[in-house]
């Protein structure tokens, strides 16, 4: 980036600087030992990766069909439930493939029964339709698969490992499972990037994302593209559900992570895959820092009945970003014409 570009984007630069300063503050003011600080940072990055995964599903669907898919969280829950229950009776690999098939069927049904009839409707009508789908999936998933807490046995080691014992006093405690999760997420993003950039279908998807009408007029079948993109989003939901589920167990609260992923999406920009990833990391770290370092101070200062500021901190952070850049970090810049 040249100097002029930096000057032109000074609000963004200022915001990023403020963010970095906020992140460094606990260290500077000696609120925590460096080892503990790194542990919190890593924890934040790990949950950030998982938020990114959910946000990725949002972005894919929004890019290809302009639908703000509130049902992404419900899809995560549904896919994870399917995987967890099926893996009880069959090997995980087969269950995984079957779960993909189920999500593809779901994508086809959504296109066939919902989206096809709502072409050209207001964005808010489409949003509400996906909310309807959310209710349906929540009910249906729990009716078919049950509503207890289930485990997904991925066979990964769950033992925490100590690293950097020499550098820091006591070392840093890291969950080895988290590393695998991060690697899986990274691989998924890489695979998606290749799919979008190198395959004919990916090219068609990008064309649809650019301009529905133009894409249709050169013979790209919109309906099929929507099925594909919802299937891909379903696949992403399945991976997200597997990773979250193996960490925390598959239960209803899993569908609530959609609400955590929303600020990620607006922070990164609705139409940007890199935005979803970077946004997820920022939100993940910001949230952890706020909870660990900021909340105790707030509780002490204002005599609160407990912290819990992570519930809204992500939203306020995203809101601040939006005030500076209304289209998110990497979203398409919108020029209004009369």
């Amino acid at each position, binding site marked *: 980036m040249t100097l002029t570009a930096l000057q032109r984007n000074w609000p963004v630069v200022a915001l990023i600087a403020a963010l970095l300063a906020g992140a460094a503050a606990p260290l500077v003011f000696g609120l925590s030992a460096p080892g503990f600080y790194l542990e919190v940072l890593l924890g934040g990055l790990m949950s950030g990766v998982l938020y990114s995964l959910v946000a990725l599903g949002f972005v894919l669907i929004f890019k290809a069909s302009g639908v*703000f898919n509130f049902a992404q969280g419900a899809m995560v829950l549904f896919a994870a439930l399917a995987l967890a229950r099926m893996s009880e009776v069959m090997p995980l690999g087969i269950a995984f493939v079957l779960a993909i098939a189920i999500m593809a069927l779901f994508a086809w049904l959504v296109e066939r*029964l*919902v989206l096809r*009839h*709502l072409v050209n*409707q*207001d*964005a*808010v*009508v489409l*949003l*509400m*339709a996906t*909310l*309807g*789908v*959310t*209710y*349906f*999936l*929540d*009910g*249906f998933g*729990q*009716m078919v698969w049950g*509503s207890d807490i289930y485990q997904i046995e991925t066979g990964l080691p769950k033992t925490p490992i100590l690293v950097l014992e020499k550098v820091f006093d006591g070392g840093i405690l890291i969950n080895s499972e988290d590393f695998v999760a991060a690697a899986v997420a990274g691989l998924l993003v890489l695979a998606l990037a290749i799919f979008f950039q190198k395959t004919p279908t990916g090219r068609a998807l990008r064309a649809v994302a650019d301009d529905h009408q133009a894409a249709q007029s050169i013979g790209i079948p919109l309906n099929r593209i929507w099925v594909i993109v919802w299937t891909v989003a379903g696949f992403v939901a399945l991976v997200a559900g597997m990773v979250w589920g193996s960490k925390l167990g598959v239960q209803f609260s899993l569908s609530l992570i959609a*609400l955590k992923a*929303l*600020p990620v*999406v*607006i922070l990164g920009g*609705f139409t940007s895959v890199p935005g979803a990833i970077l946004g997820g990391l920022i939100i993940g770290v910001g949230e952890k820092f706020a909870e660990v370092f900021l909340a105790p101070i707030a509780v002490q200062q*204002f*005599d*609160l*009945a*407990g*912290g*819990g*500021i992570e*519930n*809204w901190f992500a*939203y*306020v952070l*995203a*809101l601040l970003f*939006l*005030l500076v850049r*209304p*289209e*998110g970090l990497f979203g398409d810049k*919108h020029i*209004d*014409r*009369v």
Partner: protein
Amino acid sequence: MLYRENGQFKISYADDQQILPILQDRWFMLALLAFAYLGLPALASDYTLRALILPFLILAIAAIGLNILVGYCGQISLGTAAFMAVGAYAAYNIVIRAPVLNFIVVLFLAGGVAALVGVLFGIPSLRIKGLYLAVATLAAQFFVDWMFARVKWFTDYSPSGSVSTAPIEMFGWKVESPLDKYLLVLTLAVVLTLAAKNLVRGHIGRSWMAMRDMDVAAEVIGIRPLYAKLTAFAVSSFYAGVAGALWGFVHLGAWEPLAFNINLSLNLLFMIIIGGMGSLLGAYFGAAFIVLLPILLNQIPGWFGIPIDVALASHLELIIFGSLIVFFLIVEPHGLARLWAIGKEKLRLWPFPH
């Protein structure tokens, strides 16, 4: 045959400007009001009033507020329940800190506090548009949820975090029985609906609609976005605040912050979409639909004598609720109010096809 405007001439400006220009409509409205004030109290049981009609009327007030913001001004909000919470807790605090005030005054003050908070959270709307704004309003929802759960002052340091209210008393009238409550809420609903109708057909309502239809064009012809958007947020939040105070004091009596969670916000949005965006009548239709549907769904298995276990029933309810919403959006994306308008149009021509 009966529903014609033939022979009803408008011979003065006032005639031309009235809310219900057709005589039959005016009679219908009078009959409806008479039924609401005289018929329903005589017919409905206490249970019906308390469990069906009260929530319906209160949520209709909130839905009118949301409709002003979403349907008339085009700013999607997912945080209405937050403004209801602000109204409810403001009313609670005013009542315990200044018990001398009349409840009507308390209600309007609570609405005013909610309006202030609404303007505060509406400020981003000047910069953020569309779905980005919708997600940004969730910030209001989660922040307010958290605030009332954690800051002890708002709940008067109650150890459990929940608050309870004494029965309302004003002008020597103790509002205690479901019938009293019903009459109070009904009167407020009528007054507030009339006020909203006059707002949306006046200068300010037109500037909201211009903002909704195309904000840049509206700005070009001289409508100030700051003024138009923030007044929409203020009026909308005022209605939500009043509805929230009523929800707390009249319907619930005692509540905790969870009473105003995001599900309530989403339900309110469903109400105005199923009822019809940009229509006050639609707010009532939508509120009736969303209040009645779950109760109806719960009753149906009982009518047929099918034993059904509780978990399965709640899952089925979710499934049917979700499917019906999608169904309604597909069949009539403009809501029940549009069906009503089409029905009236057909009635005017009846028995001829066109």
